[in-house]
């Protein structure tokens, strides 16, 4: 079989990198899904609860906005450490891949919420007015107008979120979260194995490229605003 590493990495090291890649994908996927499950409704609510909107609740909107901003402005590495008690409560431990999913989700949800909010707010208000004129309820407007019309933009937003999570997931190595970042620090930096560091970076670049290409292609297919 062709050696993709050109003999720079031992087979054992290749196995470690593959395992770390699997851990990173697992963390990103699960925290991305959980983050979306929380962030999507939160983002829709943030977009539609401002004064004069479908679910106008200015006070709650401001309060949620404040919480989201607080979470977004906390540096991720501090967030990871700060919520260790919460992580232990949810995951039963504060070490390992499953434990790392907790801070990743906590960081991803408000980020995704803000992205979704922006996507929803981009939808032409004329469409909302047309739907109201048809006798649509606020929930129907969300389900049949806002979300479907914002879907290409939401797809790009989630792509951005996944790419950001790939970056964040490298940091949870600091608390024993595993994954590519952890491997890069322990072997590449602490044991001074530059070839491992390079391999980790290459794998991350490939992952980001892959995710971005997939997201762009999907968004393009969903977007019907161009002719033909």
């Amino acid at each position, binding site marked *: 079989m062709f050696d993709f590493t050109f003999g720079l990495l031992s087979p054992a090291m290749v196995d470690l990198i593959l395992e770390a890649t699997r851990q990173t994908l697992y963390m990103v996927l699960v925290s991305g899904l959980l983050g979306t499950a929380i962030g999507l409704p939160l983002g829709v609510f943030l977009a539609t609860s401002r004064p004069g909107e479908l679910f106008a609740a200015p006070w709650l909107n401001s309060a949620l906005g404040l919480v989201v901003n607080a979470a977004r402005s906390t540096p991720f590495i501090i967030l990871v450490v700060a919520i260790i008690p919460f992580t232990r409560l949810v995951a039963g431990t504060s070490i390992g891949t499953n434990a790392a999913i907790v801070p990743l989700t906590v960081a991803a949800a408000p980020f995704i919420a803000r992205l979704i909010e922006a996507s929803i707010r981009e939808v*032409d208000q004329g469409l909302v007015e047309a739907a*109201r*004129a048809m*006798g649509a309820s606020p929930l129907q407007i969300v389900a*049949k107008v806002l979300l479907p*019309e914002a*879907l290409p933009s939401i797809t790009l937003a989630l792509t951005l979120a996944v790419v950001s999570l790939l970056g964040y997931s490298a940091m949870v190595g600091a608390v024993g979260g595993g994954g590519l970042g952890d491997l890069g620090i322990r072997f590449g930096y602490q044991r001074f194995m530059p070839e491992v560091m390079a391999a980790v970076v290459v794998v991350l670049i490939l992952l980001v490229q892959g995710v971005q290409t997939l997201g762009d292609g999907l968004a393009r297919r969903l977007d*019907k605003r161009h002719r033909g």
Partner: protein
Amino acid sequence: MNAPVSVETTPRRLEAASAILFEKVEKTYSGRHGQNPVTALSDISLAVPEGAIVGVIGRSGAGKSTLIRLVNGLEQPTAGRVVVDGVDIGALSEQALRGQRRAIGMIFQHFNLLARRTAYANVALPLEIAGLPQREIKSRVEPLLELVGLADKRDRYPAELSGGQKQRVGIARALATQPRVLLSDEATSALDPETTNQILALLRKVNAELKLTVLLITHEMAVIKAVADKVAVIDGGRIVEEGSTYEVFAHPRHATTRSFLSALTGANLPPYVADRLKAEPGPGRDALIRIVFTGGHATDPVLSRVARLLSVDINIIQAQVDEIAGRPFGVIVISVPGDAPTLSAVTNAVERLKLSSEVLGYV
């Protein structure tokens, strides 16, 4: 035309005869951040007879957008009532209002079609919202696409359609729930003149075939002229003139109406004449007279008769013969010698022919 009915004595009957009725409607927006409240509409009373096409014309900011949104409750009046098909829109709960909106179709200047739905799916949307089963939706949408002439475009997305085609989809969508009233919010303002005429013809067709009452707002007198039976001119949030389209075109009273009509009825003099126009007669000056031909007289050879009768020289400055609401209508601006005896002889002769004339000035 129905005989006028007094509101005080028989309010029920008036409501029954009008598809839409505005009663002393006022709309004020509370000022933001300590600013003064803005009055968008004041003292609006207007009856839209069942089956009629009524046009409201006004400049941008005159309040016409607010006016049309009161009909389906997208805006609520701060005073007065809006009654649609006998139902007081302001008295409805949010739930009941949603049901009522299904009986009121609306089309928009920028079409407001969903970009990610095909023509078919856009027309189906109000039916999905109403909770109809797919089979029934299909049986309603396809004849509608046929009606607006887009049966072959059913699977096209809005981006693949021209402006006129998009508005046709908009009309089909507005008709999907089989409403009794159609609101048209500047529906042709984003379209070129030819497409505008096609869309207006379609509006007339659905008005006639489906016995649909149409309330349209526009800033173009040409739209009113082409389709409206009745017109209301709105300026500064008030209706300044109202009447049958023909009457308003033939005898505009308010300055706003006149300025809207100027391009269409020849009140706009060519610049080389307008620049020299004086208010006072003077030696050697000719008088400019505007004569409006209406009804049966519109096609009479009035001028040659007057010229022969009085043996004066008549110069035609501008002339236009047109058709408004299906009746012939003409405007002519002539110049005659400006001395008082000739002038009064000419105006008397015109009046004897039961035409209205107006001395515009002297050149």
